[in-house]
């Protein structure tokens, strides 16, 4: 199993550009998540999904959109990039139950200039 994979690893955007961060998991996990991590901080939840076709906002959803058309994929869309979105983005997945840990991807480092 590859686990949780994310692409790209690095990206530089100009203000106002848009992009999609890709996330795929091959563990047949129902639940998937997007987090951002700002320097020296913990992770904050952007969006999550409990299954294909179902998404919900987390703590910091403004400026982002998500979709979940399959169990495996959970892309994150930035429509109008802003410098405040400069961060490291992590995707994670798990099975239902609070007893289960989340498995994290390697992250995407995004800089908006």
């Amino acid at each position, binding site marked *: 199993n590859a686990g949780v994979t994310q692409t790209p690893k690095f990206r530089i955007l100009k203000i106002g550009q848009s992009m999609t961060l890709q996330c795929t998991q091959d563990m047949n996990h129902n*639940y998937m*998540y997007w987090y951002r991590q700002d320097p*020296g*901080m*913990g*992770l*904050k*939840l952007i969006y*999550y999904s*409990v299954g294909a076709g179902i998404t*919900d906002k*987390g703590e910091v959803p403004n400026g982002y959109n998500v979709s979940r058309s399959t169990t495996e994929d959970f892309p994150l869309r930035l429509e109008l990039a802003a410098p405040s979105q400069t961060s490291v983005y*992590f995707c994670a997945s*798990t099975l*239902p*139950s*609070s*007893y*289960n*840990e*989340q498995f*994290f*991807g*390697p*992250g995407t480092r995004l800089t908006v200039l």
Partner: protein
Amino acid sequence: AQSVTQLDSHVSVSEGTPVLLRCNYSSSYSPSLFWYVQHPNKGLQLLLKYTSAATLVKGINGFEAEFKKSETSFHLTKPSAHMSDAAEYFCVVSDLYNAGNMLTFGGGTRLMVKP
């Protein structure tokens, strides 16, 4: 509502000495608690988890943590630090009845290990 406070943003120890990283949590229901480690420019790796079984939890690389309900604490310890333990450590909580199994992260503790 759930929250986590990591009491030290930085901890510095000498190689071979004990490690203590402190974590207090708040949870409305029976919590699951986790410690994750993040090495520089890497993703997060699970060290250990507490899920209402034994209160003393053993994890990878010699780490362990003790769940103390009366103190709402879940401190991480290791008897003898190695240079390779230098990393960022996150204490994480998830409520039993939390829709979506959302995690709440502490602010992190950076562990530095001196030779």
